[in-house]
């Protein structure tokens, strides 16, 4: 490929620097380039190389994602349900549309349509604003619900009724299960386990579960059967469900694999597996870094807008718009992958 480049460099007469005034010397032509084409090609090549570095930068995060998901699919199956697919889909549309307006802006600037270019750049910028606002709303929900990374992950905040509903359910479950463990968390695993306790734990758990997950985002429903309730509530309360004699259906609901969650359809909440924080770690790093790129892209587009209004661009010189556009599309590209990977796990 590179050889092809080299095959015919002589075919382009070098325009000697000195005698070419008036011909190739566009005001936007830098002194070390011979022609606008060369300058444009160099810019494009540079931008693509930069995009390659961006791809590799995100590549590290995709690697982390792949490793955590491959090793612990249950965490992803469970935790992604806390993401709001509707907001995610809206954001996808917002970005796609802004990508389109950006592409249009490039075309417009290539045709020298200055006002149209400015307008489209402004629209693209607004797309960025919209995306970030929605992202901010989503983040705020996550923060509020303790759906965060690492040590900050706090399942006790998941529902509305932190203090009341959740706590009550937990205690109910614990009491029903016959735990003498209330005062002594460490010994909780031991002691007596009345065989019938699980049933009442289930009842209490059902209650607990609905209290624990009423956030009513699109498709998340509280589990219907008492058995699931037991495990969900117990899990949320972090009271071990002990050796509750389980119905077969509940065994099938084992939290550990994809198979478990398929029972009952897509909108099952399922019991909470361990280390849910991984998912949110991945979620926040990926969307966070992507968000930073959106902000950077918005800064670039804002700058392009100013220049466009000022009349810097013409049919001869639109390289910055084109390159800025490439960057913005890359940001869109990454989101195209992030959306299904984070929101649409099945």
């Amino acid at each position, binding site marked *: 490929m590179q050889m092809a480049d080299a095959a015919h460099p002589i075919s382009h007469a070098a325009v000697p620097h000195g005698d070419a005034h008036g011909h190739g010397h566009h005001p936007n032509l830098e002194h070390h380039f011979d022609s606008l084409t060369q300058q444009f090609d160099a810019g494009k090549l540079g931008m693509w190389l930069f995009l390659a570095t961006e791809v590799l930068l995100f590549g590290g995060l995709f690697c982390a994602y792949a490793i955590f998901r491959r090793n612990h699919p249950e965490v992803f199956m469970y935790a992604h349900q806390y993401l709001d697919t509707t907001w995610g889909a809206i954001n996808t549309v917002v970005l796609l549309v802004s990508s389109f307006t950006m592409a249009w802006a490039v075309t417009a600037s290539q045709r020298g349509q200055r006002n149209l270019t400015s307008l489209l750049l402004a629209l693209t910028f607004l797309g960025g604003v919209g995306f970030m606002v929605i992202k901010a709303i989503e983040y705020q929900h996550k923060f509020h619900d303790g759906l965060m990374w690492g040590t900050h992950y706090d399942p006790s905040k998941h529902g509305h009724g932190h203090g009341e509903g959740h706590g009550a359910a937990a205690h109910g479950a614990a009491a029903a299960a016959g735990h003498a463990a209330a005062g002594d968390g460490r010994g909780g695993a031991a002691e007596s386990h009345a065989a019938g306790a699980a049933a009442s734990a289930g009842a209490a758990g059902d209650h607990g579960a609905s209290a624990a997950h009423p956030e009513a985002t699109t498709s998340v429903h509280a589990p219907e059967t008492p058995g699931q309730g037991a495990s969900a509530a117990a899990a949320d309360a972090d009271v071990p469900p002990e050796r509750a004699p389980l119905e077969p259906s509940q065994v099938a609901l084992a939290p*550990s694999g994809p198979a478990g969650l398929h029972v009952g359809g897509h909108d099952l909440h399922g019991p909470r597996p361990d280390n849910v924080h991984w998912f949110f770690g991945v979620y926040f790093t990926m969307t966070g870094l992507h968000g930073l790129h959106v902000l950077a892209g918005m800064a670039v587009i804002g700058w392009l807008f100013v220049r466009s209004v000022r009349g810097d661009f013409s049919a001869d010189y639109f390289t910055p718009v084109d390159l800025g556009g490439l960057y913005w599309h890359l940001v869109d590209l990454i989101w195209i992958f992030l959306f299904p990977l984070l929101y649409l796990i099945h």
Partner: protein
Amino acid sequence: MTGILADSLGLMPPKASTFAPAVDFWFDFTLWVSIFFFVLIIGLMLLFMVKYRRRPGVRAVVTPTHSTALELSWTVIPTILVVIMFWGGFKTYMDQRVMPLDAYEIGVNAKQWAWEFTYPNGIRHPELHVPKDVPVVLTMYSDDVLHSFFIPAFRVKMDVMRGRYTKLWFQATLASPPGQYYPVLCTEYCGTSHSTMTTKCVVHETRAEFEQWLRDADPLKKLTPEQYDEYLRDPSAFIAAHPDIQGLQSPADMGRKLWDSKGCKQCHSIDGKVGTGPSWSGIWGQTHEFSNAPPTAVDENYVKESIVNPRAKALKGYAANAMPTYQGRITDREIDSIIAFIKTLKSGSEAK
């Protein structure tokens, strides 16, 4: 592996394990290949430097600027040599990594900045003692950061980390003379006193001598008579009161107590009776089938995982989420004790 190639030019430490001859052989092989090429290249270079040094009026001779035959030959010959080297490295490596089944097992705990070895009789000791000619497996974990276990004389090294057990095995072939020892070193940088995280490895001539040392190392022997009485009255209270005296109780004994006190016995019998969970009797080394994971042998990692994260693997034939997590309710030491206890439970041996 004999003759001129065997002495490694005196570069290697004493050969004290079964690995050493093979490692040293390949070291020597590579060394002599390297010396050959180095002498060839540098010799020619020096020759050219003298012969073709700049002299007034003498211009460089124009020689061909490339020769495919020549260039291919110095591409192909090194290729063959490195394939041989790879094979040698691969073979010795596999020997180092494939553990014998009947090996004597010693636990290794690394922490900033000390080693501690746990012997099968429950003694915890800062020194590593092993019998000669007996394969020994070290099962290692770290309390904090990365460490790396290294005995130069044995040619073995393995990182020790938190988060998973790593293993290492060797068979000593050379007893350490009385009063001398092989140094055990930490080679993964672990903080301020990294360089002092060393200890002794003593290789006993006979198994009997080693067993004798093991008995003598029993901390109970170091107790005063009053302390000994006190210990007998209530071992756990005594141990709690004397944290400085380590290894007072065998991990297996400790494990049995935990089985009794932590609630394990509610579901796991030790007499083979099937409960809510599998019986521990004879379970060690069995292969378990799961509904959500590939079959796994019952080993340290599996047991540890089953305790702290029981839902990771759903054992076929048992309820998947019957077992609570003991995360935060049990220490690593206690888990080790339980593992030690399980290991003692041969099939059908107990009936309680």
